[in-house]
C-alpha cells in the first residue's frame, strides 16, 4: 500500500475524530464518530482483518451508534449546542493530549522493529487469516473463557440498563435529602 494513500486515509480519520470532539452539536459529533468508525473498518480490511471489519460496520457503526442517536433524540439534545469548557482547561487538555500522542507515536514509529512488522509488510500470513473460520477457532478454544465471560458481561449490562432506565412501577416522590444543593 502506498504511503500516499495511507496518509490520506489517516488524515481523513484524524479529521473525523477531531470533528467528534470539536463540533458543538452532539448530533454532528455522533455523525463524525460514525465516519471515524467507517474509516477504521477500511483500515481493518487493509490489515487483513475481514471479519472484524464487517463486525465493525454491523455492530459498531450500526447498532451502537444508533443507540447513541436514539438517546440524543430521546433527550432532545438536537440543536442544543454544547457550551464549550473553560478555554484554559481546553488549551491545557489539548496540549497534554497532543504531547502524549506525539510521544507515544514517536516511540511506536521510532525504533525499528519495536512494533512487530514495523514499517514493513508484516508477517507472512497463513491462508484464511482474518476469516471467520480462523477467528472462530481461536475464539472457541484459547479464548473460550473470555468468550463466556463476555456473555456474563452482557447479562450484567442488560440487568443494569433495565434497573437504571426503567421507570419505577410505583410513582414515588423523590425522597428529600437534607443538604442537597447546599
Amino acid at each position, binding site marked *: 500500500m502506498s*504511503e500516499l494513500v*495511507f496518509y490520506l486515509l489517516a488524515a481523513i*480519520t484524524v479529521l473525523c*475524530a477531531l470533528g467528534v*470532539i470539536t463540533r458543538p452539536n*452532539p448530533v454532528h*459529533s455522533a455523525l463524525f*464518530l460514525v465516519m*471515524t468508525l467507517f474509516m*477504521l473498518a477500511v*483500515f*481493518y480490511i487493509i*490489515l*487483513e*482483518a475481514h471479519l*472484524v471489519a464487517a*463486525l465493525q460496520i454491523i455492530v459498531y457503526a450500526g447498532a*451502537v451508534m444508533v*443507540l*447513541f442517536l436514539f438517546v*440524543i433524540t430521546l*433527550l432532545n*439534545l438536537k440543536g442544543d449546542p*454544547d*457550551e*464549550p*469548557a473553560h478555554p484554559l482547561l*481546553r488549551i491545557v487538555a489539548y496540549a497534554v*493530549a*497532543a504531547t*502524549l*500522542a506525539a510521544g*507515544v*507515536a514517536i516511540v*511506536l*514509529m521510532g525504533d525499528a522493529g519495536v*512494533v*512487530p*512488522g*514495523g*514499517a514493513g*509488510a*508484516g*508477517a507472512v*500470513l*497463513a491462508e484464511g*487469516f482474518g476469516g471467520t473460520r480462523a*477467528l472462530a477457532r*481461536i*475464539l472457541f478454544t484459547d*479464548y473460550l473463557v*473470555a468468550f463466556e465471560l*463476555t456473555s456474563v*458481561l452482557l447479562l450484567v*449490562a442488560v440487568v443494569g*440498563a*433495565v434497573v*437504571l*432506565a426503567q421507570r419505577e412501577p410505583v410513582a414515588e416522590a*423523590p425522597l428529600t435529602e437534607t443538604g442537597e444543593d447546599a
Partner: protein
Amino acid sequence: MVGPAHFMALSAALFFIGAAGVATRRNIVVIFMSVELMLNAANLAFVAVARGLGTMEGQVIVFFVMTLAAAEAAVGLAVILAMFRNRQTVDAGEISLLKW
C-alpha cells in the same frame, strides 16, 4: 513503506484525541462518544499488531472489546437517562453536587 507501526501511530493519535474529548467536552453524551473513540483506537492497535505478528489473537480481542463497548453503551446510556430524569441536564459542568 507503510507497516503496522504506522497504524499503531495512527491509533495513538486517535486515542489521545478521544482522551482530549473526554477532558474538554461538557455534554456527557459526547464525553461518552469520546470514550468510544478511545476504545476504537485500542482496537486498531490490536488489529495492527495481529497483522504484524501474523497471529489472530489481536482480532479476537477486538471482538471482545466490541462486546464490551456494546455493554458499556447500554449501561452508560441508562446512567445518563437516569441522571437526566432527575436533573434535566446532560451538562457535565452542572453535575457537581459532590465535591470537596
